[in-house]
């Protein structure tokens, strides 16, 4: 079975620094994969390579067997890979609804000329998009906030909005970059249930970068560990928790992963 995502010898250099070095990985449909590693390990760089924000210095990224490493981010998004960002990159001045609609726009097919004249076809497409976006927001319990300015939302709602927006792309692969950042343990566990539900409801494959170990261990079926841009370990949560190299990377030569 072709893996959904395959990474081969992926390397990315910045000046003299190797942020990602010779990375290899396979992700299959319906996987719930976690990426962990100390700060600066290259995890976000990895996501940026996957989503097309960076070009690899060498190596290949294959999505459903086709190379995507030379494509623009918008093309990759349209192929079915969506992501969230470590620092929440919402369109702050726009409304909650507009944020979602923008992601949904890639499914609308009218031309600039049609836009200029607001043809009937366009009006129907627009109505459809508004409805679909509103439904998605309702599903995420953000429906009543549809016309609020996105930047005014409380932090937790902003995170949920970012995930909703990513899902409006109708992706098959969802990349989540530290969705639990800034959350306390109980909020993080609620997020865990929420993500399980999201994965089932939308039939997704998820790759998640996280520091909240309970969340990662509880959610993921597979975990990859990066350190200094190199994959140092991969396996099930239990295997990873007991892997000495992983423990060392996080805490020096002793201690446990919290």
């Amino acid at each position, binding site marked *: 079975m072709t893996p959904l995502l395959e990474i081969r010898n992926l390397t990315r250099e910045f000046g003299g620094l190797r942020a990602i070095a010779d990375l290899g990985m396979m992700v299959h449909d319906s996987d719930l994969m976690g990426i962990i590693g100390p700060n600066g390990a290259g995890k*976000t760089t990895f996501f940026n390579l996957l989503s097309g924000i*960076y070009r690899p210095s060498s190596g290949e990224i294959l999505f459903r067997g086709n190379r995507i490493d030379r494509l623009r981010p918008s093309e990759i998004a349209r192929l079915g890979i969506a992501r969230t*960002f470590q620092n929440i990159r919402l369109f702050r001045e726009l409304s909650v609804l507009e944020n979602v609609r923008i992601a949904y726009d890639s499914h609308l097919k009218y031309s600039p000329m049609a836009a200029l004249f607001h043809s009937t076809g366009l009006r129907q497409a627009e109505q459809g998009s508004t409805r679909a976006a509103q439904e998605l927001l309702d599903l995420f319990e953000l429906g009543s906030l549809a016309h609020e300015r996105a930047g005014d939302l409380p932090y937790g709602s902003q995170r949920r909005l970012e995930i909703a927006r990513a899902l409006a792309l109708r992706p098959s692969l969802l990349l989540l970059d530290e969705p639990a950042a800034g959350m306390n343990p109980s909020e993080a566990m609620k997020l865990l249930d929420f993500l399980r539900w999201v994965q089932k409801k939308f039939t997704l494959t998820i790759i998640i970068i996280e520091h909240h170990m309970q969340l990662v261990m509880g959610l993921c079926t597979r975990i990859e560990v990066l350190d200094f841009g190199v994959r140092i370990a991969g396996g099930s949560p239990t295997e990873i928790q007991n892997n000495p190299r992983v423990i060392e990377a996080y805490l020096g030569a002793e201690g446990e992963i919290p």
Partner: protein
Amino acid sequence: MGSFNYFCQQAINALQLGSIYALIALGYSMVYGVLSMINFAHGDVFMLGAFFCLLLVALVPVPFWLALIIVMGSTALLGTLIERFAYRPLRKAPRVSAIITALGCGLVIQNVTLGFSPYARRMPSLLDITTYQFGGLSISTLQILIIGISLSLMVLLDYLIRRTPFGMAMRAISFDRATVPLLGVPANTVITITFAVGAALGGAAGLLYGLAYPVISPTMGIAVGWKAFVAAVIGGIGNMRGAVLGAFLLGGVEVITVTLLPSTYRDLVVYSLLLVILVFKPYGLLGKPPLQKV
């Protein structure tokens, strides 16, 4: 032999123009290096250098050197005032706001000056000029003075930037404004001094320009000052060496243009050159793209 002479003559003209451009361009680059903003008002500070000189000698006939010092001091003060009241409040604002404000300030300065002096003025000669002839070339003491003073100021600036703590702080700020205060240097002081020095150089350039091309006009800020800006961008804005490189390059291009085409083509050639260079080297000849963290 005749055309070689002609070439040398034009080379001297280009050196003169280029050195004046360099003094102005350095001001643009210094401010961009420190605050990442285009100080559109700088061209008009240059213009005021010439007009301050005009005003000064009309009131009090002073010798050249004193005039130069007074003018440089005045424009330095002006530069710091603009920074303090128009730019500093916008440090945290989006970059677009700062550029717009700078543009506005420059135009206010230009149009106020136009209000006081709607017509071009003649700059009085502050020195006795002798012209030397040798081997078919003529070079005047004025040209030597202009090139000499410009180069001296540039050397002084280079020393300032590379050998003094202020210079180090200035370079540090262009990399990371937040950590500089931790080194015991208040960022605001460094920024103020940067503006002062840049404006002083611009003022000196204005005075020298007025002596070299004695008809000055309030629209000089855009007509001449902005070309120095083009020079700075061509060289790579934010980069001192780039500013000087761009300035002499532009001086040469302009002089060549005027010999081949009617002088009305100057602006066209200069700005087209800018566009062409930016298409192939988007950050100027010596510039580097800013690193953006995602």
